[in-house]
């Protein structure tokens, strides 16, 4: 990649998110993925003459939530526009969208990349409607050899939010991290299932390159058809290199839309589409303006949940390192609640976080159990953490205790007693076992006294065996050395 030295990429990402409302954006048809084709259609979403759109209030609240979560300003007044173009899956020949006054504008999202935090600006988030779905039928399903197109309008009119970043992204890794963090925010807001494979979250990237320090942007290329975070990262990395190669070998980058080919790992130029000015945007005469006044905004703001970045910061304040805070922030909500309650009950935050993200998660996965179905409470986790730090049970016995708790055997203390896992921390009882072991192993004692220190390990093992592993190892060690010297 030395060819990239001295070059800088300028990347902006457009993300489309389908809102998972009950009904569509402008009509009462059901929003549903995977239904039989053309079951959820009506005159409005089929674009039949005379049908009138009426906006879904919930969608407007949800896009406002998205904007607030992305630190955007919410336009008090915004309007819908018609974006005009001809395509078979767009039955009205225009898409209702927003143009110069979107609901949300000028925000940012902080993204963690390789231990650093990068602030990516948000240009805007606007409300629009999704199109229908076209299936191009023909030889091998290849679009170029299609002989006919099948249309399903179930998706037509589903509320769609387009979120446009500022060109603040510089690397493929940042592009991926931005898209992932944005998805986490959307999921936290519970406004979309944001499934990449089903297309309820989709992204396009605008990429240009310039020599480092150059004041102007290079020619911008739009990349489409990236269906996973991995393909987004690969496509961006490929395209940056392609553009630098093009320029350094004497060519020029042309402004175009390119298609990412996942299998070949390359981008292909597509036939150019109508330019932006050809969409002939004009205000949608069928819809009156939307006014989201201060009162409504305050109501919506109150419904915002704790966002991933806020949660990570809260965990960091509890003393978790960034990695652990990040893993825990991405954990299941029920598990996070157990963690929060454990900390409230006085548990050491780091120890509780390690239990939750480690042993507890592993147990649930192993036993194929949903986090919400586990009997583990915050109080019990706090008790378990305390039992380990007070040496009531050994670290390995603590895993057995957890197993018992998870299987419904009761509180940690009860499980530890029931499974006979309480450590012997009574010096007298351990001393008796130590004496027995020393009497039974005179040669080991002799070797120790001749200077062979490591023989202590063997003797500790013998004492642990004599106590069925329940003696507190630290105490055993102390007593052994005391008696040997």
């Amino acid at each position, binding site marked *: 990649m030395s060819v990239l030295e001295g070059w800088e990429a300028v990347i902006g990402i457009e993300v489309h998110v389908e809102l998972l409302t009950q009904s569509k954006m402008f009509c009462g048809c059901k929003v549903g993925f995977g239904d039989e084709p053309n079951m959820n259609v009506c005159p409005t979403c089929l674009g039949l003459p005379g049908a009138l759109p009426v906006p879904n209030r919930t969608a407007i609240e949800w896009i406002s939530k998205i904007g607030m979560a992305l630190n955007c300003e919410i336009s008090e007044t915004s309007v819908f526009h018609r974006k005009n173009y001809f395509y078979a899956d767009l039955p009205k020949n225009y898409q209702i969208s927003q143009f110069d006054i979107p609901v949300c504008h000028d925000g940012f999202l902080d993204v963690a990349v390789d231990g650093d935090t990068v602030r990516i600006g948000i240009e805007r988030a606007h409300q629009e409607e999704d199109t229908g779905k076209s299936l191009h039928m023909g030889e091998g399903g290849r679009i170029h050899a299609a002989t006919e*197109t099948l249309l399903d309008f179930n998706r037509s009119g589903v509320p769609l939010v387009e979120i446009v970043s500022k060109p603040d992204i510089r690397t493929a890794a940042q592009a991926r991290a931005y898209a992932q963090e944005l998805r986490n925010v959307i999921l936290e807001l519970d406004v979309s299932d944001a499934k990449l494979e089903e297309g309820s979250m989709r992204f396009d990237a605008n990429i240009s390159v310039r020599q480092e320090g150059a004041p102007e942007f290079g020619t911008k290329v739009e990349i489409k058809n990236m269906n996973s975070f991995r393909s987004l990262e690969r496509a961006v990395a490929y395209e940056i290199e392609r553009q630098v190669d093009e320029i350094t070998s004497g060519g020029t980058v042309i402004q175009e839309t390119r298609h990412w080919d996942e299998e070949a790992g390359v981008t292909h130029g597509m*036939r150019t589409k109508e330019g932006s000015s050809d969409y002939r945007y004009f205000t949608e005469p069928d819809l009156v303006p939307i006014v989201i006044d201060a009162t409504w905004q305050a109501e919506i703001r109150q419904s915002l949940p704790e966002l991933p970045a806020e949660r990570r910061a809260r965990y960091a304040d509890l003393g978790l390192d960034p990695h652990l805070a990040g893993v825990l922030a991405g954990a299941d909500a029920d598990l996070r609640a157990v963690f929060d309650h454990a900390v409230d009950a006085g548990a050491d935050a780091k120890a509780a976080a390690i239990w939750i993200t480690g042993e507890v998660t592993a147990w649930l996965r192993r036993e194929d159990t949903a986090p919400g179905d586990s009997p583990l409470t915050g109080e019990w986790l706090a008790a378990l953490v305390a039992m380990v730090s007070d040496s009531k049970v050994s670290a390995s016995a603590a895993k057995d205790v957890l197993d018992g708790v998870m299987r419904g055997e009761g509180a940690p203390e009860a499980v530890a007693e029931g499974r006979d896992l309480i450590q012997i921390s009574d010096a007298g009882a351990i001393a008796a076992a130590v004496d027995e072991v020393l009497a039974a192993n005179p040669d080991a004692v002799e070797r120790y006294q001749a200077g062979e220190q490591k023989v202590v390990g063997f003797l500790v093992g013998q004492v642990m065996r004599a106590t069925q592993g329940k003696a507190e190892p630290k105490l055993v060690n102390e007593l052994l050395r005391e008696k040997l010297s």
Partner: protein
Amino acid sequence: MPIDIDIAHVARLARLALTEEELEGYRRQLGDILEHAAHVQDLDTSSVTPTAHPLGFVNAFRDDEVCPSLERAEVLAAAPEAREGYFVVPPALEGS
């Protein structure tokens, strides 16, 4: 001053196949409209509140509730061609 219009481009965007005569006629008519709009733009509107809609109200919403959709058989019966629940149309390619 007459405004320069690429009337053939405008017709193409609207998918209208126009004869030379029609193109000339629409060029003139559209020119008149744009000239009139230019006059309006010359007006001092600094004291006028921008308006996006002639109706004097805002926020005409509906609740997020599902209403019955149309019968699919009825919908597809209106299409020139349908199969297995889909509308069938000539191959639609990006940009064509």
